[in-house]
């Protein structure tokens, strides 16, 4: 029986076996990239909200402090989402007949919650706590980005374990004076010197044992 393949195809098949390694490698690499991409982490996606509440407007332009609304961020795990009453503090009087604010007024009249759509959502097997990050001098902007420039909130960090660990293993690159935690635009030219000083002062260990986040 005549050979179907010419001997020269041997080289071809060798190359393709070798090539397959690259293909598989490439596919794995592709998966890793995809896994970190905005598509998988949902970073960069602004959520439609029941009321088009704008952080840019309220914090960037009016200069309201984060804690006016997120009252528990310094003392508890959850930053807290403001109740309708907090909006009515001002909107009982200003823009009190704006149609965009009707859901807020309806909620105030009926006592039913406004159902905000969660933007950041860690898996339930991860423990996260805002208060320790605030008290150790990690600014809101280090994790949430320039909230004061966003009309609708979007997630800017991947919020994956790798990302948490990057900072936990190297907190000196991110720590800032406690007074500046709520300042979205804070910036220093000499993070290296400041970081080293604050790590000492705030007694930061930079922990990365599994049990602090998976408890």
């Amino acid at each position: 029986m005549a050979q179907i393949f010419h001997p020269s195809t041997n080289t071809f098949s060798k190359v393709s076996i070798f090539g397959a390694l690259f293909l598989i490698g490439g596919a794995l690499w592709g998966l890793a990239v995809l896994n970190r991409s905005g598509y998988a982490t949902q970073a960069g996606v602004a959520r439609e909200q029941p009321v088009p509440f704008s952080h840019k407007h309220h914090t960037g332009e009016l200069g309201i402090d984060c804690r006016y609304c997120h009252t528990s961020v310094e003392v508890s795990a959850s930053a807290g989402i403001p109740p309708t009453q907090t909006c009515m503090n001002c909107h009982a009087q200003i823009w009190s007949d704006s149609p965009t604010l009707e859901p807020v007024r309806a909620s105030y009249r009926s006592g039913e919650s406004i159902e905000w759509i969660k933007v950041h959502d860690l898996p339930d097997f991860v423990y996260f706590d805002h208060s320790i990050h605030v008290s150790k001098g990690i600014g809101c902007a280090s994790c949430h980005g320039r909230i004061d420039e966003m009309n609708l909130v979007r997630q800017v960090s991947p919020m994956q374990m790798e990302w948490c660990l990057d900072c936990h293993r190297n907190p000196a690159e991110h720590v800032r004076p406690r007074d500046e935690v709520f300042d979205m635009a804070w910036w220093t030219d000499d993070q290296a010197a400041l970081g080293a000083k604050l790590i000492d002062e705030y007694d930061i260990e930079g922990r990365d044992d599994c049990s602090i986040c998976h408890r």
Partner: protein
Amino acid sequence: MRSPSVKTDRRRSRLARVARAIAIAAVLAGVLGGCRQDMHDQAKYEAFERNEFFDDQRASRPPLPGTVARGHLAEDAAFYLGEADGALVATAPVSLDQALLARGRERYDIYCSPCHDRVGTGNGMIVERGYKQPPSLHEQRLRDAPDGYMFQAITNGFGVMPSYAPQIAVRDRWAIVAYIRALQLSQAATATDLSAADLAALRAHETSK
């Protein structure tokens, strides 16, 4: 020579093995995928999550009216209400120190400055956008008002100003009152009120400009 029947048997069994492997992989993928999602969204409630069980569908339950958390009995009327024996307390029932003033300043800037502005003259950003203008905190009437009066304005609201009790803890309200006193002093202080050292520092600052 092997019989054809055996051959087909073998082929069938190989097919069956491949099919079984695919089926197992599919089930495994399903199970693992399922597990992953289960663990991502566990049968527990996070803060503010929806819970169909309750009429208002809130998983974070508000305390029942009249309940008191352990250690939170508001016995001390002077501290919690700003009143003692039916009269407003004249001075804040907390010990006054630098830390309290610093805390008061921080809380004042967060919760009051949007309307009363940072020095208390009543020209805050929200007022500029059309909110009713509050009186200046430096009016003589408010300078003479007892600390309890300020405390109650924060706690119960005043006129169109809403109550800030849900947002500000009791001790912080007293810290704010203390800071308002400092503001009032700052806007009416004269050189003679300063200590010699402070005065010298001020002079040095003036001449360096």
